């Protein structure tokens, strides 16, 4: 084999592997999409049917299920409440960690990273007890606070990366022109990191939207976020309603999917901006 032919072979193998991965990655979504259009007996057929009669019954039934729409509303309130709150608290903290050197700044950063990395079960058991005493269980405020607690770690670490990216001389120039430290922060540093802000906000939003574990013990009747609702409603003791489950899943994913695809360019730019040091 000539070196040239060998190189073509290696290249084509590489591309083959990439195409293979690209085909596998969306498979779960494809599966759930097809499942949601099947009638009940088609969903549990073994082997799964590729050609089937498409019906819209699942979607109709899910939308008619009492509580589904209100659970979407609850999810929305949760996400809209907790991401701005996490933002207001987290961004200044990220800025201070990026710019200022003070005693314990590393430990604070580390502690916030741990809150993000540690399994939610560690947080949720004591939190459940505390919320019981405070009467915050099963309320919007309680869930927003719990989600904010997790979101802050993300915000601080992402924003710290973004702030480290912008040259410090920008703010120095602002200070020479008469800005105070705080003015330099919100007049200069914040607008410059706008794409980063957007990316972080979206991540917070997605986290709140998808979060199951924290919402599960803290929400029961008055407030039910969509994942909690889906799990408790369509997964029965004896049978799993695959069609309804898939339809509900599609309906939950759809708004986020459209949202993320629409702003994908910004998102990727914001992400790489934080990653490349």
């Amino acid at each position, binding site marked *: 084999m000539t070196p040239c032919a060998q190189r073509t072979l290696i290249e084509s193998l590489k591309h083959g592997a990439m195409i293979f991965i690209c085909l596998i990655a969306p498979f779960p979504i494809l599966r759930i999409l097809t499942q949601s259009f099947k009638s009940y007996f088609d969903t549990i057929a073994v082997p799964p049917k590729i050609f089937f009669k498409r019906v819209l019954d699942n979607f109709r039934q899910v939308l008619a299920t009492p509580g589904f729409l209100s659970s979407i509303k609850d999810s929305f309130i949760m996400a809209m409440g907790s991401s701005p709150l996490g933002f207001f608290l987290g961004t200044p903290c990220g800025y201070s960690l990026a710019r200022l050197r003070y005693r314990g700044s590393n430990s604070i950063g*580390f502690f916030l990273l741990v809150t993000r*990395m*540690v*399994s939610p*079960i*560690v947080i949720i058991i004591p939190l*459940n007890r505390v919320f019981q005493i405070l009467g915050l269980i099963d309320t919007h405020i309680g869930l927003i606070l719990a989600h904010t607690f997790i979101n802050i770690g993300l915000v601080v670490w992402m924003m710290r990366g973004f702030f480290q990216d912008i040259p410090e001389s920008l703010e120095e120039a602002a200070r020479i022109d008469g800005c105070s430290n705080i003015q330099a922060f919100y007049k200069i540093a914040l607008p410059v990191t706008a794409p980063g802000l957007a990316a972080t906000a979206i991540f917070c939003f997605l986290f709140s939207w998808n979060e199951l*574990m924290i919402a*599960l013990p803290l929400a029961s009747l008055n407030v039910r976020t969509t994942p909690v609702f889906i799990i408790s409603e369509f*997964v029965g003791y004896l049978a799993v309603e695959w069609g309804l489950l898939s339809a509900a899943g599609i309906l939950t994913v759809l708004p986020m999917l459209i949202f993320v695809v629409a702003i994908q360019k910004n998102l990727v730019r914001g992400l790489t901006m934080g990653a490349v040091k």
Partner: protein
Amino acid sequence: MRFITLPLAWPLIGIALTFRLIGAFRSFDILYAVTKGGPGRATDTLIIQAYQENFSHFRLEYGLVVGIVMMLITIVMCVLLLRRVTANR
């Protein structure tokens, strides 16, 4: 590839691996949605077990102990991760 790219990429691969390790360690929602640790306790992970003991059987102390153990393990992993990230910079 083998002598240039991989050695340069090793630190990043290490970070990604540690990240995934922590992620898998704390994963809950998929496991809970799919099997809830069942059938029996065949697919029980630490976190599912802690959740069940705490919220279904109301053995608060068990859940708390598991929580603390998990926190310690995660802190150790975080230290490793951070050391790598900072060494890399």
